[in-house]
């Protein structure tokens, strides 16, 4: 056997570096610190950005075969399916064209009435098309990654919609991709308006408990909410433009032991398997700034509370 084939250098006796236990302590403490910094103080975005840009070539490389496979499967997809989809789209267009014809007239009327009442005109929002690359792997949240980043002018906080309704909100922006938190994620809340009654509420994502849905919280047990009601964004938060469909009411449970009804919602947008989305600009960039808090009333309220 030739020399040098076996590992003949003995392992170092004394210079073995720090012990495994001390390394475990140091790195566990570092990991805990990072977790607290991430959850409590939200200061880890620079670390994330650096690591994400280091990781981006690997992600890009893995995405290429995936994109090819998608293209090939799309190429071989059944012609019949495409024709059926087109027929359905035509039927939908036929149904919508009648309403669309009225929209011009309604908009004109709306504008006149608003001018008559001296109301502020509704802001238009700029939109940007994007494509969903993949679901974020974290099974503890509901997020997707889209193929537009701050190079394309995406800002954190922008609402994201698909062709049917609100899909979610951009929560992290990297150079050429961004992370969208879906409406069913536990951390996302949307102010909504019941289109039948006009009652406002807040819908919270609740993917775990209700099997991929939302929950309309803090509605009184006797509130007028029926299964099938459609909820749209109310536009009071300065993020989502008003009137986008969010969810429909799935189930209403009124129980005696609580003052609130338990209202489960089903998202309107395709939260699983969506591909083409639109990223809107947050509305607050176009509405008037919030007036400065009135110090006199604030102090007055404080004194009355005493």
């Amino acid at each position, binding site marked *: 056997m030739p020399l040098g084939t076996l590992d003949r250098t003995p392992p170092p006796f004394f210079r073995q570096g720090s012990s495994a236990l001390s390394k475990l302590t140091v790195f566990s403490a570092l990991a805990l610190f990072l977790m607290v910094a991430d959850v409590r103080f939200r200061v880890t975005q620079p670390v994330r950005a650096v690591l994400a840009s280091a990781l981006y070539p690997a992600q890009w490389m893995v995405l290429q075969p995936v994109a090819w496979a998608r293209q090939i499967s799309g190429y071989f997809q059944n012609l019949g399916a495409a024709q059926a989809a087109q027929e359905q789209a035509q039927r939908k267009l036929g149904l919508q064209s009648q309403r669309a014809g009225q929209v011009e007239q309604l908009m004109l009327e709306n504008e006149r009435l608003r001018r008559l009442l001296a109301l502020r005109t509704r802001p238009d929002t700029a939109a940007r098309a994007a494509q969903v690359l993949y679901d974020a792997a974290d099974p*503890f949240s509901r997020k997707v990654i889209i193929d537009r980043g701050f190079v394309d002018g995406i800002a954190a906080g922008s609402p994201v919609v698909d062709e049917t309704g609100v899909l979610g909100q951009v929560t992290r922006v990297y150079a050429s991709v961004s992370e969208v938190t879906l409406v069913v994620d*536990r951390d996302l809340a949307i102010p909504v308006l019941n289109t039948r009654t006009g009652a406002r509420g807040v819908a919270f994502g609740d993917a775990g408990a209700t099997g991929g849905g939302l929950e309309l919280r803090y509605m009184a047990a006797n509130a007028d909410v029926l299964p099938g009601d459609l909820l749209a964004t109310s536009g009071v938060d300065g993020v989502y433009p008003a009137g986008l469909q969010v969810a429909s009411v799935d189930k209403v449970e009124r129980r005696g032991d609580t003052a609130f009804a338990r209202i489960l919602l089903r998202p309107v947008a395709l939260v699983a398997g969506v591909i083409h989305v639109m990223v809107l600009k947050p509305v607050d960039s176009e509405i008037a700034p919030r007036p400065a808090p009135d110090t006199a009333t604030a102090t007055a309220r404080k004194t009355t509370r005493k």
Partner: protein
Amino acid sequence: MIMRQGQQLLLPANPFFIWGSLLCALLLNLLQNMGLWGRAAWTPDILALVLVFWSVHQPLRVGIGAAFVFGLCVDVHQGGLLGAHALAYVVLSFLAITIHRRLLWFSVPSQAVQVLPLFAVALLIELAAQLLAGGTFPGWSMLLAPGVEALLWPVVSVLLLVPQRRAPDPDANRPL
């Protein structure tokens, strides 16, 4: 060196192969997420498996520091809590280094049984961290992941030791 009876003498491990296999495992993890199964919770964490393998076989080269860095990469890719995977991998690597002298005395199937608790501990650590930080419970299917990883242990043990099992003096009968 004292070794188990009948065990083959191995060639020294190539550092490029070690780090290359770790990178490949990371890429496989990315592929599982981006192309194959999306957000599924039961998918085996191949990177954790390869990390444990090298922590057991080459504890002087691959250790807790490498586990921490790879864990951070996984966290950033997944977009979840930063540090959860890092903590899980650090503990995993520590436990692997703790048992590395004992583990190699057993046959490969019984090694697989002995690494199963390691993966279970790593999963529980991650679950606890994520749920404390306010995550959604991903479903019971996630308990399958350590089992699948343990089942993959023999496969990984064969694949990653292939370069070290080559003949030291290749000839016509033993070209590799």
